[in-house]
């Protein structure tokens, strides 16, 4: 016995509405985020992640409002991410009712944000999220042995930092992050499976819980992610458009020997 593998629906939110993009473009509307999150709670989701996707370059208040509204209806832990830039932003989300705050671009620009967040609120509140893409062979971030590695992208995937993702996550752990969301941009929206190489590489280099993200098309992909080293699996499209219910996913994982609630 021990901890269960967590099934986490991710709700991308734009102007208060849920959307899900294929490769971050071509967004579709799938409803009210709080209603949808409450539904997932009742269906057996273990956690919810809300990403305010417009937040990197627009108004921040919508995310705080969302955090506050969710607190009325959602009785499982939830994370708010997207455009969190400062310790004050983190505090505002946690005070509004979020259990965790996910930081991405801001952590790359100001790595001390991880340390400060962990010191003030505890590591368990600080989720370090990365959007990564496989680097082409021969690029600077490539590994000496010829394995190309992964590069960190910012601003919802619009800006390539050319930083090595695994090295960045090792640093994030050292600075006090509590867990990682690994979002593979190569897989995101394809429904062809998580990037298993990425998960096992990060699992071998760090000790933090890994939330696999990007590419879930069916429950078998989630089983593979767990076997590669993920503690939790995040998905959007397959849940939002009813391809699989939370219960169906849990049943499939349970049958494969993965401990679920």
């Amino acid at each position: 016995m021990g901890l269960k593998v967590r099934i986490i629906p991710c709700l991308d939110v734009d102007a208060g509405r849920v959307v899900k993009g294929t490769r971050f473009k071509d967004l579709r509307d799938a409803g009210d985020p709080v209603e949808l999150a409450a539904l997932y709670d009742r269906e057996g989701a273990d956690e919810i992640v809300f990403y305010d996707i417009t937040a990197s370059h627009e108004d921040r208040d919508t995310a705080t409002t969302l955090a506050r509204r969710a607190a009325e209806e959602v009785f499982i832990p939830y994370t708010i991410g997207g455009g969190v830039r400062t310790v004050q932003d983190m505090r505002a989300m946690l005070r509004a009712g979020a259990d965790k705050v996910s930081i991405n671009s801001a952590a790359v620009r100001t790595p001390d944000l991880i340390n400060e967040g962990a010191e003030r609120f505890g590591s368990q509140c600080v989720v370090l999220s990365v959007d990564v893409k496989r680097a082409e062979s021969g690029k600077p971030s490539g590994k000496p042995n010829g394995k190309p590695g992964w590069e960190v992208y910012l601003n919802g995937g619009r800006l390539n930092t050319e930083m090595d993702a695994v090295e960045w996550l090792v640093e994030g752990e050292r600075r006090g992050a509590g867990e990682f969301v690994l979002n593979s941009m190569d897989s995101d929206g394809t429904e062809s499976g998580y990037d298993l190489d990425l998960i096992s590489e990060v699992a071998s280099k760090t000790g933090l819980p890994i939330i696999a993200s990007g590419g879930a098309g069916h429950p078998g992909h989630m089983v593979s992610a767990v076997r590669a080293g993920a503690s939790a699996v995040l998905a959007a499209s397959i849940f939002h458009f009813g391809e699989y219910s939370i219960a169906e996913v849990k049943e499939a994982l349970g049958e494969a020997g993965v401990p679920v609630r």
Partner: protein
Amino acid sequence: MNVAVIDYDAGNTLSVTRALKKVGARVDLTADPERVAAADAVVLPGVGAFGDCMRKLHERGMDQACHETFRAGKPFLGVCVALQVFFEVSEESPGVQGLGILPGRVVRFDVGDLKVPHMGWNDLTLTRSHPVLDGLDGEAFYFVHSYYPEPKETAVVLGTSEYGTKFCAAAGRENLAAVQFHPEKSSLAGLKLYENFLDWARGL
């Protein structure tokens, strides 16, 4: 029936209040010990360090209010670090006295390669029956903690969970029940616990 939630700047106060309201409680979120004394039932939330929690309770006169609630025989529920402060001392905050209503001390997880804090969903196994935990044997609850109580008397242990070691996840005696996990973040099983608490409070 009026449930007082003790307001002493604990992080989960609002989510505890919302869960109680969700199951139909009339909640008085209060920092006033007299209003705690006037309530029919009392909930002590809690997040954070043992020493911090005791200091904040003491500053507000709420440590005495907790003792009086227990002595008055009112249904009394503690959540998360509130379970820990019902014990005597903690490794987390040497030199700080807990409420001492339950005999024993609080220790840190020492579980080899397993990560601390213990964070996530884990099963609860009941070791004694209690109205607050009715129907919840084997259910999973959401935990976030690095320390757990080691009671001196096994009689106060209501339920256990396993994380490298079997630990006390719920404890109580007489009119007091406390849980290490967060029922307000434990979906339907957690709401059922709060519902049980209200039923227990109505029946006492």
